[in-house]
């Protein structure tokens, strides 16, 4: 039974754990609540592991499929399945949830049960997004994960949290509703909500453009691409550390995943037709947003803009339609998940002690927190794309892919190696090095064991995938090949 239901377990174990935490936990029994949440997230992580160990790397199609009739009136199925693109993202999700539960251990003191439950439930829903093979099932997961995130930012966030969380919700909702219209349209064309049927459905270019645009609205907001990115800095700044980590590490990837799973294969001709504008938007994100990051005073905002810039790399890799770019994009997604998560955790470590995110409030942290600074500098280097860290692999592959397509794409993309280094290292210099900035910095305590554990694991991941990225590329290779050959075929009838 467990053999064939790995995906269902991956989705529902964390959700069930979340409900249990909600039912049993309370602020009076905070300790029990935390341990329960930790057990839940460990269980959630363990059930996703077989997806990696039992995955057939030679097969580029969907594996671990499960299908049941769900709503026969509209031919909607509970159909799950994963390919080489989804598996690493699912593992990233369950891993990140574990990290987030640990990161909120002492920091969250009010409404602990609701906090932990929100992240556990969100984890299950996001895994659902990655594994749904039915349009409506996907849409249900996609939208419902907004609810816990809305609450997380709104309840545990900073001073301007209400504005940020409502902006986040409405932006994403507006984009997704157009996607729903596209799904319904496709349903009336094919009498099915199965994604695989959509892949086979011939569509004229005008219709493909409409569908691509509808999906674009949903996914571009999520990634986020320039110019619909403005919700992200607000959401990141106001969100609690855990919320920022999940946003940066996973939610942004959902948009990119959506392009790979929906927008591009369903409307391949439109994707080719619009490749140049998409690349242009990506490059604007890479270059322009990097300059914006350079000007930030707030550490979280800086990392948020840096995320947008890095995600621009991912979309660039996808829309140059070659294996290097696409595989690079996927590696970049995973690596960015670890790095941005780690960076936000680092800011969280400082914020918990000083209650400030302003770069100007710090200075010379290395004098009081040497161990922490070592980690922070490592992650900063990785963010700047230093060879030997996972940040380098993805960017390098994408630049290699881009150069095959057009020299100037590659040139503009490569400027990020300079700009990224500039804004990251300048922040590191101002926050960590130099003389002790003020009396508060002088009283800082170095990492606790829990923080050391979290950052240590992430550092291993960043270095590990930097030196040996094969586990990811092996997983994705066959799928990317299959996807590209599908994209190369026109779906225009006649």
């Amino acid at each position, binding site marked *: 039974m467990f053999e064939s239901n790995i995906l269902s377990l991956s989705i529902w174990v964390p959700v069930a754990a979340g409900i249990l935490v909600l039912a049993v936990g309370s602020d009076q029994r905070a300790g029990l609540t935390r341990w329960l949440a930790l057990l839940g997230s460990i269980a959630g992580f363990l059930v996703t592991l077989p997806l990696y160990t039992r995955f057939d790397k030679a097969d580029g199609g969907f594996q671990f499929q499960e299908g049941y009739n*769900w*709503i*026969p*009136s*509209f031919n909607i199925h509970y159909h799950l399945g994963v390919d080489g693109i989804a598996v690493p993202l699912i593992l990233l999700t369950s891993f990140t949830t574990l990290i987030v539960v640990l990161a909120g251990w002492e920091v969250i003191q009010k*409404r602990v049960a*609701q906090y932990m439950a929100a992240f556990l439930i969100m984890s299950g829903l996001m895994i659902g997004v990655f594994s749904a093979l039915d349009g*409506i099932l996907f*849409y*249900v997961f996609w*939208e*419902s994960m*907004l*609810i816990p995130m*809305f*609450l997380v930012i*709104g*309840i545990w966030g900073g001073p301007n*949290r*209400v504005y940020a*969380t*409502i902006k986040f*919700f*409405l932006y994403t*909702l*507006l984009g997704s*509703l*157009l996607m*729903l*219209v596209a799904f*319904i*349209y496709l*349903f*009336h064309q094919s009498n099915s909500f199965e994604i695989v049927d959509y892949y086979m459905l011939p569509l004229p270019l005008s219709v493909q453009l409409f569908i691509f645009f509808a999906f674009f609205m949903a996914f571009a907001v999520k990634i986020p691409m320039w110019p619909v990115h403005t919700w992200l800095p607000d959401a990141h700044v106001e969100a609690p550390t855990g919320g920022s980590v999940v946003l940066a590490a996973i939610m942004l990837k959902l948009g990119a995943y959506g392009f790979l799973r929906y927008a591009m294969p369903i409307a391949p001709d439109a994707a080719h037709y619009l490749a140049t504008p998409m690349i242009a938007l990506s490059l604007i994100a890479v270059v322009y947003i990097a300059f914006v990051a350079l000007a930030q005073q707030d550490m979280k905002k800086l990392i948020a803009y840096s995320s947008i810039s890095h995600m621009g790399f991912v979309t660039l890799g996808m829309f140059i339609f070659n294996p290097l770019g696409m595989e690079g994009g996927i590696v970049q997604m995973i690596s960015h998940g670890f790095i941005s998560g780690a960076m936000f955790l680092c800011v969280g470590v400082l914020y918990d002690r000083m209650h400030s995110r302003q770069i100007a409030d710090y200075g010379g942290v290395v004098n009081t927190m040497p161990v922490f600074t070592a980690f922070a500098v490592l992650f900063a280097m990785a963010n700047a794309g230093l060879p030997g860290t996972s940040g380098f692999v993805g960017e390098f592959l994408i630049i290699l892919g881009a150069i095959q397509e057009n020299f100037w794409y590659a040139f503009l993309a490569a400027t990020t190696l300079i700009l990224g280094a500039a804004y990251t290292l300048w922040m590191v210099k101002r926050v960590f090095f130099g003389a002790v900035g003020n009396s508060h910095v002088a009283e800082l305590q170095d990492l606790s064991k829990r923080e050391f554990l979290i950052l240590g694991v992430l550092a291993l991941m960043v270095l590990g995938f930097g030196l040996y990225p094969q586990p990811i590329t092996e997983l994705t290779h066959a799928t990317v090949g299959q996807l590209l050959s599908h994209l190369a075929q026109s779906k225009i009838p006649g």
Partner: protein
Amino acid sequence: MNNAITYDLITALPEIFVLCMAMVVLLADLFLTQRNRFIAYILTQLTLLGAAFITVSTHIPAVGYAFNGMFVDDPLSDVLKLMIYLGTSMVLVYSRTYIALRGMYRGEFFALVLFAMLGMMIMVSGQHFLTLYMGLELLSLCLYSLVALDRDNARATEAAMKYFVLGALASGMLLYGMSMLYGATGALEISQVSAALFNGVGDRSVLILGLVFVVAGLAFKLGAVPFQMWLPDVYHGAPTAVTLLVGSVPKFAAFAFVIRLLIQGLQVMTVDWQGMLIIMAVLSISIGNITAIAQTNLKRMLAYSAISHIGFLLFGFLSGSMNGYISSMFYVSAYVLMTLGGFGMILLLSRKGFEAENLDDLKGLNQRSPWYAFLMLLLMFSMAGVPPTLGFYAKFTVLQAALQAGFVSLVIFAVLMAAVGAFYYLRVVKLMYFDEPQDMEPIAPSPDMALVLGVNGLAVLVLGLMPQRLMELCAYAVAHSLQ
């Protein structure tokens, strides 16, 4: 002959039973003291149970006409009646404590509710202009008096007056339209009107004029823009227990009313009423959603939200297909369930001398009671149409019906407006979860209310995860009744 009479009586047995029981409640109440008033309550609930039993046991999956074709018993009417009983029963459970604390716990309340319900049942089963009109008036008159039941309350009296004047005007329009149709086709019975139109009988300009008046009257009763003016004032002014009734169950009757008149009676003129419904739907969705944003009173906010929901409901009708009518029925069922929960929550938070009707009264509900905050969260997200709640499938079904009928730009407009509407539902969630409570008065509902409200709230989630049964039920009811 005798057989025909017996058949007629059996067909209308639920109505006859409810009528008798309403009178029994009225009479029995004369002999009850305030201390054992609960007997009237129990009797009313038993009436609903008995009516449900009769409706189920006389149910056949076919269409049966009675009283010379003035009255119909089809799956649609049976299913709608069952939903009406259930809804009314929930209304009674939610209102009991509230009316007891405000001196309205009297036999009249229960008798009026039963008579109003009888009116709805006649509307649902009416197959003749006059039967339909009679049902509508019975319902409306009971609602007018219910709104004014708290007679020392100036606001409620004003609301009742507005409701009555505007409602009478609407009834007049409806009746005038019906007379036009009668003049043109020479028939009052729905099926005969339909047949006459099908054969091309009647002067077209008279028919159109009649249709306009009928649609205007219907729109008034539904509360669709531009005939929505009474709705916020009545919702706001009426005692919340009555608002709960006005805002919820009669929507089933209104749905049936539209089906009987426009779809069964005037199907030939689909193109003509389609245009009117499109305009009303677009206006209702936009004005309802945009105006709701500016409200500070929860009851008024829900009133404007009701207007926008009516707009979505019209989407199913204006598709002009079986798929669309089924979707509308699904929408109305979902909507009534959500409205019951929403107003039930206001009743839950109200106490003696305190009406929890301002948005600010919801502040910090999560700290006062996480459970009820969670239920309200579900209800709000459901009204906003966010999965995995029932409200999502409600919007999904009507939108797919409209898209199937080819109204692409209308659908896109509707989803944009749905995103606008999400804002004020989110604000409710924001107040409950992100703000500090203003008063820490414990929430202590009666056990029956706690149970029903819990089931109501969770039903929105459970039916959202498994909507198939409800969809099948609506499809069964509509498809077996319309040929």
